[in-house]
């Protein structure tokens, strides 16, 4: 449109205010648009659908939205409340995702979908994953792979049949700190010496059951059509045997997967105890402790796993790999991560010199802080030990060290990036179905051992899908 000479060329006050308001809105929205807009016309762009917009689905959405060349085209959830949330969040970031209640409709209606992210309750993983794979989509499915070994096995089979990728959400396997620990510290430098033991824990304080926002309840008929008994079980599915593998699956799966990975072996046996001792309205155990035996290349390693849902004591959540020359305590939370050197081990200064590890700047084992009137201490100055030995059988205190690797992204983002890179042929999956199947077998056996109240054995073929 051109301006004719008869039209006034100056801005009116109304024009000025209107333009100003639009400019202001554009400036406020610019960071979101710049962060989220899919590349226009990029042939590399992957069209993604999400099944399950609950708690975990939202975490994955927020992580995936930071990855370039990803376009969400569909979002599916049986609960309108969740579905609307996902749809609105995606719209805010410039993704026009079509909402669906039924995943079958979504898969048949949207042929342009390249990949499906499954973040539904465990008992639906196999059904959703197998359907998506059968429709020719690549699948990223949340852990635990399935609440049954049969379900997990069917997912691997479906992936093979379809010739499509299946990544399971054990996201620690894509975390650069974990990769560094596995590949460099344990694999190349053998900095821990002979690994002799491992442990892991995830202790959480008491939590109330999830309720339902006012006027958002689903009719029981709808719930039952999708396999749920009622709204309470739908909201708190992690606590009920029909839908999940319990806390050992919900929290333990991530960390028991680290046992398998870091120790480079599958276990030969598991002994476990646990029970529903605190929450009377749940079905699954609220505490579980398991002891695995791993046949590693240097000998048997026993690994202890503890999960508590009634106390947050014990130092948060972490995995510990212990050797005769050092130990690695690692967690998704960097503040719990540290390397410890045994007093008998060769000096680690050479590893500091080569950049493999760094001296801790803060926290346990770090030099005491320099006071405002003090100059920085020389490197070789002696540090007095404040703790005293109370028993002659105590061995020397372990010195603490750090890893020179940080993760400056959301913890799920590298794992999603690995999945999308694998789709583009630029990387191999870091938690493919076959590997995650072994983890699922390792995890689910714990519930059997708790029920049997005795040690159960694994056969090597148990871990083959």
């Amino acid at each position, binding site marked *: 449109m051109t301006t004719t000479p008869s039209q006034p060329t100056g801005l009116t006050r109304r024009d000025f205010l209107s333009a100003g308001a639009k400019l202001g809105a554009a400036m406020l929205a610019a960071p979101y648009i710049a962060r989220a807009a899919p590349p226009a016309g990029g042939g590399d762009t992957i069209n993604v659908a999400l099944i399950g917009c609950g708690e975990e689905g939202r975490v994955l959405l927020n992580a995936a939205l930071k990855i370039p060349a990803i376009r969400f085209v569909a979002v599916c959830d049986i609960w309108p409340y969740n579905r609307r949330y996902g749809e609105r969040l995606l719209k805010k970031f410039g993704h026009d995702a079509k909402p669906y209640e039924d995943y079958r409709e979504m898969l048949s209606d949207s042929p342009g979908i390249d990949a499906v992210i499954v973040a539904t309750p465990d008992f639906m993983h196999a059904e959703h994953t197998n359907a998506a794979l059968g429709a020719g989509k690549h699948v990223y499915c949340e852990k635990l792979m399935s609440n049954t070994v049969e379900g997990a096995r069917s997912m691997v089979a479906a992936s093979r049949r379809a010739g499509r990728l299946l990544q399971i959400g054990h996201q620690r396997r894509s975390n650069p700190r974990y990769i560094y620990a596995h590949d460099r510290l344990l694999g190349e430098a053998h900095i821990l010496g002979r690994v002799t033991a491992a442990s892991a824990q995830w202790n959480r304080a008491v939590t109330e059951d999830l309720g339902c926002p006012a006027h958002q309840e689903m009719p029981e008929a709808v719930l039952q059509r999708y396999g749920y008994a009622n709204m309470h079980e739908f909201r708190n599915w992690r606590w009920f045997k029909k839908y999940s593998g319990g806390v050992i699956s919900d929290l333990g799966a991530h960390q028991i997967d680290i046992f398998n990975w870091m120790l480079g072996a599958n276990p030969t046996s598991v002994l476990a105890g646990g029970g529903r001792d605190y929450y009377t309205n749940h079905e699954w155990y609220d505490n579980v402790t398991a002891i695995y035996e791993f046949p590693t290349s240097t000998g048997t390693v026993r690994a202890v796993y503890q999960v508590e849902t009634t106390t947050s004591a014990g130092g948060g959540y972490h995995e510990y790999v212990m050797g005769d020359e050092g130990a690695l305590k690692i967690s998704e939370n960097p503040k719990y991560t540290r390397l410890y050197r045994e007093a008998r081990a060769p000096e680690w200064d050479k590893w500091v010199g080569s950049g493999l590890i760094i001296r801790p700047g803060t926290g346990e084992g770090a030099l005491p802080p320099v*006071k*405002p*009137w*003090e*100059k*920085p201490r*020389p*490197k070789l100055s002696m540090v007095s030990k404040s703790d005293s030995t109370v028993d002659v059988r105590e061995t020397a205190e372990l010195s603490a060290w750090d890893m020179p690797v940080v993760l400056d992204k959301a913890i799920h983002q590298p794992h999603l990036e690995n999945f999308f890179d694998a789709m583009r042929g630029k990387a191999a999956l870091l938690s493919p179905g076959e590997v995650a199947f072994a983890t699922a077998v390792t995890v689910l056996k714990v519930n059997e051992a708790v029920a049997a109240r005795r040690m159960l054995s694994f056969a090597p073929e148990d871990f083959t899908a």
Partner: protein
Amino acid sequence: MNEPNPPAPAPSPCEYTWAFLILRLFIGLRTFLEGLEKFELGGTYSFANYYQNMGKMAQGITGASFLPLWATRNYAHSLGYVLLLLGAALLLGVKTRMTLILTGLLYVSLAFGLMAVQENEGVAWLGIYVGLIAGALVLVRHDRFGAWPDRRS
């Protein structure tokens, strides 16, 4: 009635001399190296490092106490040289009685600064040095091997 025990033999003048010499050398070394480390920063020794260290010290003490910056800065800028001077004098045995008195007073002044910032651990360490210097003053009459000895009393 039993015979009273014979009195223990008094230490010989030689033992007092060695006791004092050991004490003098220890205090001298400690004082000299205390002064020397004020010139160190990042493993290198220089006058620039000295003024940087001392400036930080003055600012830190003033920031954490009632002492004014002009006082802490003047004190800090002279501290390293005084420590080196007194330490060297003790090691060489230059006017040892007066040097010990000045060193003791210097450590008391350092303790005052740490008392002002409520650094009790540092005060306790300085208290040990002050005690050693007080002991040395008791034995100073046995001083030998000095480059410039005190006049005999």
